[in-house]
C-alpha cells in the first residue's frame, strides 16, 4: 500500500499542477524583478548625489557662473545650439539674484524674500511680483504662475536631492572624468521622459561641474547643457546684492500670468 502522501488521486494531481503554476509564476516574478533591477539608483551614484545636494543645501550663500548651451531647431530643420551665461548669487533662505546674458539679450532676476523682479536690460523694462517666502517659493511661483522657469533651479532649492530623485527609474555612476580639467564623477540618471547627467567635482567640495538634460519625448531629443565655473562659497553676499533698484528711465511693465494667456499659442508659420 502506497503511503497516503503519494497516493495518486485526481485531487492531488490537481494540487501539484496548481503548485507548479504557482512556482512558475514565482519564478517569473523573480526574473522580472531581476530584469527591473536597473530601475534603481546605484548606491554609489546615490551617495554622490546626496553629498552634492547636502553640500549646496547647507551652504548659507554662494555664487556660481554657468555657461549654458541648448539645442534649437532652425526653420530649415537643422539643429544648432544656442548659448548664454547665467550668473547666480544665492543666500539662503530667501535671497536670489540671477543675470542671464547672451549676445543681444541681457536680463536679471532679483528676489529679496518679498518681491520677485525681472529686468530686461536691453530694453530697460522691468516687472515685479509679490512672492513672499523662500527661494523655493519664488522659483515655484515664478514657474507655475508666471511661466518663468529659472535655469539650474534644481541646484538652488533648499533640498536639491528631493527634486533630483523624483521619479527616477535609474541612476548610474559612470566613473571618473574631467570637466575643464577638474576631476569629476560622472553620474547618469533617467526618469520617464528625461535623461540627465551630472558631473560632480571630486574632493572636499562636491559641487556640480556639468549638467545635461536630454528631453526624450521631444523631437530629436534636444539637450540642455550647463557647465559650471567660479563656485564661490566664501564671499559674503549683503542685502544690496538682492535688492532691485530700477535704473533711471526704466519702464515698469506687467508680468502676465500663465492662465491669462492660455488661450493663445504662437508658432512660426512659415
Amino acid at each position, binding site marked *: 500500500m502506497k503511503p497516503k502522501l503519494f497516493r495518486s488521486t485526481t485531487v492531488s494531481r490537481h494540487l501539484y499542477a496548481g503548485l507548479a503554476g504557482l512556482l512558475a509564476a514565482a519564478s517569473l516574478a523573480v526574473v522580472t524583478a531581476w530584469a527591473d533591477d536597473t530601475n534603481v539608483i546605484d548606491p554609489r551614484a546615490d551617495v554622490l548625489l546626496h553629498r552634492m545636494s547636502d553640500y549646496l543645501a547647507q551652504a548659507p550663500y554662494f555664487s556660481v557662473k554657468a555657461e549654458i548651451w541648448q539645442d534649437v531647431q532652425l526653420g530649415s530643420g537643422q539643429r544648432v545650439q544656442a548659448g548664454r551665461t547665467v550668473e547666480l548669487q544665492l543666500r539662503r533662505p530667501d535671497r536670489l539674484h540671477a543675470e542671464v546674458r547672451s549676445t543681444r539679450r541681457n536680463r536679471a532676476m532679483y528676489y529679496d524674500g518679498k518681491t520677485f523682479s525681472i529686468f530686461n536690460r536691453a530694453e530697460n523694462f522691468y516687472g515685479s511680483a509679490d512672492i513672499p517666502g523662500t527661494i523655493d517659493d519664488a522659483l515655484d511661483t515664478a514657474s507655475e504662475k508666471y511661466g518663468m522657469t529659472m535655469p539650474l533651479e534644481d541646484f538652488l532649492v533648499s533640498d536639491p536631492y528631493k527634486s533630483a530623485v523624483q521619479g527616477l527609474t535609474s541612476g548610474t555612476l559612470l566613473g571618473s572624468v574631467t570637466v575643464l580639467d577638474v576631476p569629476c564623477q560622472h553620474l547618469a540618471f533617467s526618469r*520617464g521622459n528625461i535623461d540627465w547627467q551630472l558631473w560632480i567635482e571630486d574632493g572636499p567640495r562636491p559641487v556640480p561641474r556639468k549638467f545635461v538634460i536630454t528631453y526624450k519625448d521631444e523631437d530629436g531629443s534636444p539637450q540642455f547643457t550647463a557647465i559650471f565655473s567660479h563656485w564661490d562659497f566664501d564671499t559674503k553676499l549683503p542685502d544690496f546684492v538682492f535688492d532691485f533698484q530700477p535704473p533711471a528711465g526704466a519702464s515698469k511693465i506687467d508680468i502676465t500670468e500663465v492662465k491669462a494667456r492660455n488661450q493663445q499659442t504662437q508658432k512660426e508659420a512659415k
Partner: protein
Amino acid sequence: MKLNIFNPGLPLTIAIGAVVLIAALPLAAAPPSGGGGGSRGGGGGGGGFAPRSTPVTVDRVDHGSLRHADTQVVARPIAVQPRPVEQPREQPRPVEDHRVTEAPRADDHHEVARRPEPGPARFGFDGRPSMIVHRDVEADWARPNFWHGFAFHARVHALPVGCFSLVVGGFPYYYYDGVYYQQADNDYQEVYPPVGAAVPELPDGAIEIDMGDQAYFYAGGAFYIQQDDSGYVLVAPPMGIMVPELPPGATQVSVDGGLAYQFNGIFYRPVFADGVTQFVVFTP
C-alpha cells in the same frame, strides 16, 4: 509513472494551473517596491516608476530644470518649410518689367540688396537665417525677413522682383513678401499694410498666433487670416492678442502714463510673458 494525456481529470488540472498562473502574473509584472534593498535612500516619494504622461509636442529645453520639467510647457513651434515661389495668381497683375528690373539709384537706401537672396540652401539656412521662434531662448540668430526692413514712406525706385499689384479699398498697392508700396511720383513708397489686402501666400517669417478658434498670422505689423480659397486676407488685430516682436518702425508713445508702441494705428503694450518681453495689442 506515465502521464495519461487521456486522463479525464487532466483538463481540470490544466485549468487550475492556469488560474493560479494568471492570478500570480500581476505579482510578477509589478515593479519592485521600495527600491530593492534601500538603494534609493528611503526617498521613494511615492514611487514614480510610471512614465509621466506629458504631451509629445512640448518645448522645455530652455527651462534647464528637472523640478519644473513638466510644469510649464510651451507648444513646440512647427517648422513649415518655405513653399516654392509661386507665380501670382491671375488677379494680381505683374508690375512692369522695366520697373522691376531697373537698377536702383545710388541714393536709394531701400534697394533690393536687402532682400533675401533666393537660391539653393546655404549653410542649411535656405538662404534665410531665420529660425523657429522660441520665446524663451536667448538664441542670437538674426532672422531678418524682407519686411523687417520696412520703413514707413521710405522710397524705392524699383520694386522687388516678384512684386505684384493689388487694389484695396479702391486704392492701388504693390506687394512683396509682407511689404506694401504705393506709387509716389516716379518712385514707390512703403506704406502701412492695408486692412482688406488679399495675398496668395503668407510673408516669410509669419508667426501663427492662435487665439480662441481663430488662427492669425503675424508679420510686419500685419495680421492675416486664411481664406477658404487658401489665400490670406489682412485683418484688424483682435484686442489682447500677444505678439513676440514689434513691427519694424513702431514708435514709442505714452498712453495713460504707461509705455506703449504704435504702428499703423495699432497700439502695443509691452509685458513680460514666460520671462521674456512680448507685446499685447490694446485700445487706448
